[in-house]
C-alpha cells in the first residue's frame, strides 16, 4: 500500500542501478535530508536539551556511523574479522593532530583525507597476515595491532607533541573564515561538517561496494577459492578491503576526537572501543550500509536512553543501569546472531516487505 514498486517502470539500465530506484525511497531520503539539514540543527531533538542533542547524540552517532561503515566494509563485505578498529581510529586521530600542528595552515578537509590515508597504510600493514590466514588467526593479528598501537600512542611522545598531559587536543582552527574545530567552534558548525562528510563517505561506499572492487570483496568473503578461480586476485581484494576500511575508520577517529570530544588520550582507542564498533556492525547487520546506520545509532542511543529512563523513571542508580546495558548489549548480540544474523537491516527489509502489502496481505 505505502510501499509498492508496481507501476514504476524503468526503461534504462542506468535507472535500475540508481541508488534509490523507488519513488518512495526518494521521498524517504528527502525527508531525512530536510530533517538532518534543517530541522535538527534548528530545533534539536524533541524533549532534549539542544546542546546535549547535538553534542551527545547527533555528532557521535554520525561519527560512529562512519566507523561502522568502515568496519562493515572489512567484516561484512570482505569477511575479514578485526578487533583493531579502536587502534586504527586512533591512527587517524593522531595523524590528523600531527598534520594540523605541523602545517598550521593546512585545509581541514585535506588533513582529514590525509589522515584517512595514513590509517589506510597502517591498516594494510596489519592486514598483511590476512593473505596467509583467515578467521580466528586474523583476530590475533588485529589484536596485535590493537595492543601495539595503543602502546605507541602512549610511548611515542612525538605523536602528541611531547605535551605534558599526553593527550591530543584540538586547537581552534578555521576553514573559510569559520572556526571549525577547537573549543570555540560552534556545535552547529561541527554538526554540518560531520554530516556532509558522512554523506560523501556513504555515497562513496555505496558506489565502491556496487562496483568492481566491492564485488571482488564479496566474492572473497563468500568463497575465496572460487573467487580466485574466476580471476579475482586475493592480494588486491583483501588489502584493498583493509585499506578502504581503515581509511573510513581513520577519518571517523579524527572526527571523533576533533569534532566531538575535543581532546583524547590513548584510552579513547582501547580494545573496548573495538568491541563497541564490532557490536554496531553486528547489530546493524553484516554487509549492509543501511545496517551500519541503524547499528551505530542503536548501540549509541539505546544505552543513553536506558540510563536516562532508569534514572528518572525507576530511580535506579548508575551502577545498575551501566551493568544492565552491558548485559543487554551482550544479549542483543547473541539474540541477533541466533535469530537474524543480518541484524536490524534485515528487520527493516522485512518491514518494507510488510508495508508493501499492508493492509491487504494475500
Amino acid at each position: 500500500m505505502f510501499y509498492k514498486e508496481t507501476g514504476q517502470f524503468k526503461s534504462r539500465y542506468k535507472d535500475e542501478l540508481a541508488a534509490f530506484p523507488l519513488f518512495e525511497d526518494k521521498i524517504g531520503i528527502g525527508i531525512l535530508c530536510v530533517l538532518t539539514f534543517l530541522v535538527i540543527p534548528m530545533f534539536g531533538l524533541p524533549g532534549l536539551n539542544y546542546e546535549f542533542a547535538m553534542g551527545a547524540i547527533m555528532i557521535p552517532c554520525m561519527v560512529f556511523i562512519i566507523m561502522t561503515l568502515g568496519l562493515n566494509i572489512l567484516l561484512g563485505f570482505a569477511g575479514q574479522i578485526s578487533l583493531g578498529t579502536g587502534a586504527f581510529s586512533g591512527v587517524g586521530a593522531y595523524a590528523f593532530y600531527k598534520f594540523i600542528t605541523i602545517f598550521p595552515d593546512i585545509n581541514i578537509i585535506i588533513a582529514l583525507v590525509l589522515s584517512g590515508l595514513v590509517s589506510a597504510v597502517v591498516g594494510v600493514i596489519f592486514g598483511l597476515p590476512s593473505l596467509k590466514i583467515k578467521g580466528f588467526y586474523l583476530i590475533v593479528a588485529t589484536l596485535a595491532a590493537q595492543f601495539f598501537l595503543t602502546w605507541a600512542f602512549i610511548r611515542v611522545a612525538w605523536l602528541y607533541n611531547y605535551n605534558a598531559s599526553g593527550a591530543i587536543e584540538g586547537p581552534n582552527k578555521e576553514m573559510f573564515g569559520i572556526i571549525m574545530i577547537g573549543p570555540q567552534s560552534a556545535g552547529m558548525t561541527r554538526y554540518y561538517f560531520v554530516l556532509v562528510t558522512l554523506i560523501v563517505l556513504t555515497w562513496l561506499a555505496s558506489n565502491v561496494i556496487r562496483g568492481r572492487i566491492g564485488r571482488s570483496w564479496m566474492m572473497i568473503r563468500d568463497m575465496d577459492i572460487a573467487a580466485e578461480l574466476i580471476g579475482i586476485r586475493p592480494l588486491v581484494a583483501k588489502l584493498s578491503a583493509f585499506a578502504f576500511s581503515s581509511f573510513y575508520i581513520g577519518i571517523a577517529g579524527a572526527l571523533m576526537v576533533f569534532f566531538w570530544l575535543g581532546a583524547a588520550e590513548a584510552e579513547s582507542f582501547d580494545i573496548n572501543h573495538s568491541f563497541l564498533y564490532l557490536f554496531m556492525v553486528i547489530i546493524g547487520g553484516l554487509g549492509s550500509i543501511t545496517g551500519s546506520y541503524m547499528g551505530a545509532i542503536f548501540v549509541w542511543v539505546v544505552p543513553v536512553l536506558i540510563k536516562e529512563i532508569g534514572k528518572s523513571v525507576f530511580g535506579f542508580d548508575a551502577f545498575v543501569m551501566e551493568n544492565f546495558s552491558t548485559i543487554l548489549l551482550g544479549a542483543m548480540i547473541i539474540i541477533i546472531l541466533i535469530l537474524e544474523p543480518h541484524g536490524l537491516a534485515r528487520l527493516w527489509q522485512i518491514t518494507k516487505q510488510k508495508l508493501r502489502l499492508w493492509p491487504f496481505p494475500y
Partner: protein
Amino acid sequence: MKKHIIGAAVALGTLISTVSMSFAEELLVPHLTYRVGPFAANGTMGANAITDYFTMLNERDGGIGGLKVNPEECETGYNAQKGVECYESYRGKNPLMHIPNSTGITLQLLQKAPEDEVPIFTMGYGLSAAAKGETFPWAFNYPASYWSQMTSILSYIDSETGLKGKKIAFLYLDGGYGREPLPLLDKLEPKMGFETVRIPVAFADSQNQGSQWLTIRKEKPDWVIMWGWGVMNITAVKEAAKTRFPLDRFIGNWWSGGHVDVEALGMKAKGYKASNFTPAGRDFPVVQDVIKHVVSKGLTKTEPDMPGKVLYNRSLFMAVVMAEAIIEAQKLTGKANVTGADVRKGFEMIKLDEARLKELGFEGFTPVIGSCADHEGQGSIFVQQWNGKDWEKITDFIPPMTDIVQPLLTEAADTYKSDKPGWKTQNCS
C-alpha cells in the same frame, strides 16, 4: 506488539518530561562518578562521600544559603568519552561546577569550561599547570598540584636520607595521571642532583607487575615513589614485599595511600608510606555529623565503616571546598541562586584557614587559601605510614618547594596556551 509500543511511548514521554523539566530552585552540583569499571572501589567511596556531605548540609542546615543542594551523579566508569557525554548532559541546567574525578576527563573538559562558563574543580588531580589562575581562570586544583606534591615528597626524602646522588625509581600508572610529574622530574634531576628510573605500569598490567619490580631489583634504587591508582597500588606493595624492597623507602602519592590499598595486606604492608592531606579518622566533628545525619539515618549507600577512611575523608574535604566556594559566591552576589561564573569567583576567594577548618570540623586538614592568580593554594602535605592496622601520620605538614615549582608551572601554562589561539586568560594584577 501494540502494548510494547505504548509502553515505550509512555517511557519515552516520561523521559522527555523529566529531561526537559526546567531547573527548580536548587543548587545543582553535578559530580562525575565511577561506580563501575576498574576503579569502582575507590569511585564508589568517593561518590558516596560527596553525596553524603551535601545530604548532611541539606539535613542539618537546610542546604546552602537556604537552597537545597542537588549533588547529582553522572556515571562515567572512569572513561573519558562517557565523561564528555556527562558534561554535555548538564548543559543549560545551570551546573555550578564540574567535578570530573579523573585526570583524563579533566583534560578534555579544560577547554570546554571557559566557553560554557562553568568552573572545573579537581582536588588533588588534573593538570598541574591549571594552578596558574591567570592562564586557567576556570580550573582549580586545590590544595596542591601534582608537581607541588612531588616536591614535598622529595623534600621529605631529602630530610630522611638526603637527595643528592640518590637513585629514585618512579613507578607510575601509564596514563595522563601517572605521567603528570614527568616533565617536573626532567627539570629537577639536574637541578637537585638525583637520578630517576621511570617505570610505567600499563593499566592492563596493573595486577601483573612482576617485570616492573624485577627492573627495580636490577636498578637498586634508594627510594621508590609511586603514582598509582586502584588495584595497581596493592599489587605494587605486595610485589615490593615479595622482592624484599624495604617498604619504608617506598612512598606513594596521595592516591596511593588509602585504606583499600593496604588493608588486605595487613602486617605485610607494614612500613609503607604515602603522602596525604586529609587525615584518616572518625573523630572529626564533620565525620560525626555525617554519621549522625546521614549514615545512621540510612540516607546513603555508604557502608557504616567507611566514614573515617582516607579516601572517604578526602572526598568529604572535596565537598567542603565545593560548598565553601558556593558560600563565597553567595556572599559575593548577595543572592542564593548563584551561577557557575559566580562560583568561579567564589573559588578564587576561598579562605579555608585553620580557624575556618576548625569551625567546619576539619581541624588538621590542609588549609586551602586561593586567590585570582593561585588556583592550587600551594598546600602542604604530610607523610603517613602504615603500621599494619592503620595509617599513622609521621610528619608535620611539608610545604612544596614553591620557588622551584611555580616558575615551572608558569612555563607549562604558557606552553599550554601557546598552541591555542584565542585561549581565554584573566589578569590578576
